[in-house]
């Protein structure tokens, strides 16, 4: 330590610290800027947006644009705001997250504690399914959803999100249960506990963290999905992201930037709130989904 202390003079060390802090703070401001601009734009009236400065704070902040985006803005030809689409997303995301998480937990349990010949191939195939470009399944999916009468329905989107989320949920639970001691399972088997009893009594009570991670990961992914929504439910059953894009890119009438930004905030808030409340778990999910170690 003394070597390091003598090689660097206290002055230059302090300068380096200032430099580090300054760089980090500048980056933080740049990262916050788009969100800041979104929020202040949504609180300004339209003439203030046209005549004023983008970065200026609103002179008289008002939630008018928020109410308009929610209740009366035109998405395509329907001028009923984005509220209906917001609920579409809620109705889609809750069952899709619940079903894919439950199935993922059971799959992870089987793939770690009840291994059978070929379990690795099964897992590998499920894992690869996470990474395919969804363009490769869009056309058949559109056909099948049409055949079974689920085009443009929330139920259809739930099915799609369950199917294409299974790989990730299985991955999360498999990696988590792999570290769970086999001895406890064996002991329970000795005591006569069956498949579901072991899962229910032994694994599930200690699965809290991975359930939170999986639920948050799935919630964020499904809420934020656009491709499936626009391909399979672009009408009245559209999710929030699709409605937002339709609202922003519609070219009829006066362009209301404040309403656009308010609608974008409605689309952003659910995942942002989850991030603020449970950011730690969000990051864990991201890492687990990226680094399969």
């Amino acid at each position, binding site marked *: 330590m003394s070597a390091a202390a003598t090689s660097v003079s206290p002055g230059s060390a302090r300068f380096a610290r200032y430099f580090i802090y300054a760089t980090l703070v500048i980056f933080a401001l740049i990262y916050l800027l788009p969100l800041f601009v979104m929020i202040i734009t949504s609180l300004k009236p339209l003439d203030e947006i046209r005549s004023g400065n983008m970065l200026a704070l609103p002179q008289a902040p008002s939630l008018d644009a928020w109410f308009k985006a929610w209740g009366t803005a035109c998405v395509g030809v329907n001028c009923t705001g984005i509220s209906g689409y917001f609920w579409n997303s809620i109705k889609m995301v809750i069952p899709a997250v619940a079903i894919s998480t439950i199935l993922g937990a059971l799959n992870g349990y089987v793939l770690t504690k009840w291994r059978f010949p070929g379990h690795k191939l099964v897992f590998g195939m499920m894992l690869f399914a996470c990474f395919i*470009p969804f363009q490769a399944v869009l056309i058949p999916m559109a056909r099948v959803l049409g055949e079974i009468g689920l085009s443009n329905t929330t139920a259809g989107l739930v099915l799609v999100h369950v199917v294409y989320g299974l790989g990730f949920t299985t991955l999360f639970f498999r990696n988590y249960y792999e570290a769970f001691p086999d001895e406890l399972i064996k002991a329970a088997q000795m005591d006569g506990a069956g498949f579901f009893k072991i899962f229910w009594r032994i694994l599930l009570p200690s699965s809290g963290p991975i359930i939170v991670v999986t639920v948050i990961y799935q919630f964020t992914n499904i809420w934020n999905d656009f491709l499936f929504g626009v391909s399979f439910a672009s009408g009245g059953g559209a999710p929030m992201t699709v409605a937002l894009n339709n609202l922003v890119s519609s070219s009829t009438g006066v362009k209301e930037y404040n309403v656009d930004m308010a609608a974008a905030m409605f689309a952003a808030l659910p995942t942002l709130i989850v991030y603020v409340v449970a950011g730690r778990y969000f990051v864990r999910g991201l890492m687990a989904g990226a680094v399969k170690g």
Partner: protein
Amino acid sequence: MTVTVDAVEPVRHRAGVLDKARDILPKVVLAPSFALILFFVYGFILWTLYLSFTNSRILPVYELVGFGAYVNLWSQPNWYVALQNLAIFGSLYIFFCIAIGLTLAILLDQRIRGEGVLRPIFLYPMALSFVVTGTAWKWFLNPGLGLQRTMQQWGWESFRFDWLTSTDMAIYTVVIAGVWQASGFVMAMFLAGLRGIDSEIIKAAEIDGASTFSIYRRIIIPLLRPAFLSAVIVLAHMAIKSYDLVIALTGGGPGNATELPSTFMYSYTFTRSQMAVGSASAVMMLMGISAIIIPYLYSELRERER
């Protein structure tokens, strides 16, 4: 322990059928999920592959006609625009995400006060939908009302930033928005890597009198190799799949200036009624992603084995 075993054994002998049921049960539980994946993923991939060898236009037809759709695809100037854009977007996106992510991770790793405040700020864009990101940046970069006018109002009269509406530069706005969204994620990956490095190695180098810069260059950054690999793979995979961001930010325009394979596939399939060509482009995308992901997954799964 022996008592329990004795108690269980006779039961086992009596209930052979029950025993078999017990062996089958886990497979029964896994089967529906696996069946879903087999049908909706692998079955659908084969279906798309099949369609790419047909003449399907607005609706699928199932008469095989050979490689016509592929010949057609590779003679579309639009497809080359899409590939070129993917090359530009992908390489810059990966480079800047890694450069910024690594810089932020190293700076945050200097025992920073307020790390708990800064780190979430760098990472929050990752929680947003690409559509929200695209909408926000479309407004922010709007030449008429956004950044350009703001700078001009502040007295920098000659400031120009109209990339969003410029055919040559629009693809770079997609890079900017994409890097803004994903670089914090890359930072988190590198930060996890940095925190995993044994501090004894660094202390030893410090005692030997190595400068901070050379410790990073010679020791720490080489030790981050796995994080680099993961970052490149994840980002390349995200770049190929990028669709929503382009749609929300530029809509693929101006003209076809920001066409990507993903937008190409969508418009040829669903709006231009060239389903066979759309399928062929989807097969190309799948091959591109497979070339990146399969070796990676294979090595990751093997590594866990050891």
